[in-house]
């Protein structure tokens, strides 16, 4: 990730601040930075969302394609994640430079969504054992400002909420199966993302932990714990990252905080998405032109 170089004095300032629940930008330990979400930004996709979390900018496009079902799950559709770290974010990502980070993010997202209650994959099956919808979730990282995992998971959830899948009617005729696409472009099926998880990254700074670390804070943190938390407080994936280590009790503390923060994050995200969906027709300036 992008290098931020801090002196020892600056690090001490940040660590002491986190202990007193007052961070360098005035937030408390469990507060997120300002977050902006916009959906339906790219018209070549089935659903898209753009998110800006302070300096982090992420664009997610969802495309659905009709494909073969997998032999292991003949009655389910599939979801596939792909992350691309654009060189726009930092020149280090040029060529294949961003691939490691991209794989890490896409694996974490895939694990977070690999849980039957997150997204009902059975609804994506068209003809059992033959055809299903494959949902391609493409995450494009345009600017790095910390909390990439959190921001991408939020953007993915928003884009999935925005996704509309064309409705198909299946008719069986003497052994042949025919698929018919509805003529009405508004006759679509929406995904139920109510139980989809958001990733909350807790960074250990000194003896306390903070959510949504800025780049400066990431530079002082040796270990972080990532939790994929659903609206009900279920943790669907968990991952420790970084060179430092945790003791058992601090993981328990972090789990508590993560669940609490994750639940409120999911709740406010859904509120925003629903209200934006209602006001869709009012917007006239979109994307980067605002």
């Amino acid at each position, binding site marked *: 990730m992008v290098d931020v170089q801090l002196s020892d004095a600056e690090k001490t300032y940040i660590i002491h601040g986190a202990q007193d629940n007052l961070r360098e930008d005035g937030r408390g330990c469990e507060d997120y930075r300002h977050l902006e979400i916009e959906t339906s930004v*790219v018209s070549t996709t089935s659903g898209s969302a753009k998110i800006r979390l302070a300096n982090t900018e992420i664009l997610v*496009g969802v495309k659905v394609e009709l494909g073969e079902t997998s032999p292991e799950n003949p009655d389910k559709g599939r979801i596939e994640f792909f992350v691309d770290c654009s*060189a*726009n974010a*930092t020149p280090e990502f040029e060529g294949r430079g961003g691939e490691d980070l991209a794989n890490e993010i896409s694996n974490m997202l895939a694990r977070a969504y690999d849980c039957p209650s997150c997204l009902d994959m059975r609804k994506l099956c068209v003809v059992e054992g033959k055809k299903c919808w494959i949902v391609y979730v493409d995450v*494009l990282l345009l600017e790095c400002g910390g909390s990439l995992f959190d921001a991408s998971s939020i953007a993915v959830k928003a884009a999935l909420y925005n996704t509309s899948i064309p409705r198909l009617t299946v008719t069986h005729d003497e052994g042949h199966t025919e698929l018919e696409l509805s003529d009405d472009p508004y006759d679509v099926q929406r995904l139920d993302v109510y139980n989809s998880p958001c990733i909350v990254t807790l960074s250990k700074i000194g003896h306390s932990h903070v959510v949504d670390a800025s780049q400066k804070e990431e530079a002082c943190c040796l270990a972080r714990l990532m939790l994929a938390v659903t609206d009900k407080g279920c943790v669907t994936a968990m991952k420790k990252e970084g060179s430092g280590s945790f003791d058992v009790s601090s993981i328990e503390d972090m789990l508590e905080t993560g669940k609490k923060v994750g639940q409120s994050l999911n709740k406010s995200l859904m509120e925003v998405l629903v209200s934006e969906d209602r006001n869709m027709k009012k917007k006239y300036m979109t994307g*980067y032109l605002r």
Partner: protein
Amino acid sequence: MAGIELLSDQGFRVDGRKANELRRIQCRLGVFTQADGSAYIEQGNTKILAAVYGPHEIRGSRSKALHDKVLVNCQYSMATFSTGERKRRPRGDRKSKEMTMHLQQTFDAAILTSLYPRSQIDIFVEVLQSDGGNYCASVNAATLALIDAGIPLKDYVCACSASFVNDKPIMDISYLEESSGGAELIVATLPKSEQIVFLEMNSRLHEDNLSHVLDMAVKGCKDIHDVLDQAVREHVGEVAAISGLE
């Protein structure tokens, strides 16, 4: 392409434009804070982001450094969801590599390269949504980003495409017009001096018509220049007002 009339008898194209009309251009400079310069452009449904980093030290192997001028390094990538059909990878395919090379040549000709010997300027272009004229929009976006970064240029670089339908040249063609099999002429110019820095033609076109199509494309570049220039002036005005220069 059978069935689709690219230019009607009344002189209108499929999207309702006249033959010599550009698509709507909307742009913004300085969309990102981390990059030294950045810009976003929409030409019709083609949406492109460009970021410029530099001039800075040569990254990677020092042997790439040029002793008498700056190294212009470009990367063109398309978001996997930018096209109608999903792309497998955002860059590294032959088309993107060719596009990268073309951008590099174009900007090598436009940047005052001798001012920064042994350094490097990065131009990164990201196509968010593509609807024809990707090269043109990329060049226009990159020009704005270079201006935002304050890199000395000979002039704006403006690119425009043109085609030839029903014995008439048409300006700034969309994906539909591009893929209908007609000729496609892409030109990048320095509009003030009317110098052509990049020229490419696909498919075939009768020699007699070439000058008409070329004139149309150059006219398009001039029109684009006016739009970009206005955007730059507005942006600089805003920045000056914010920093209290007035």
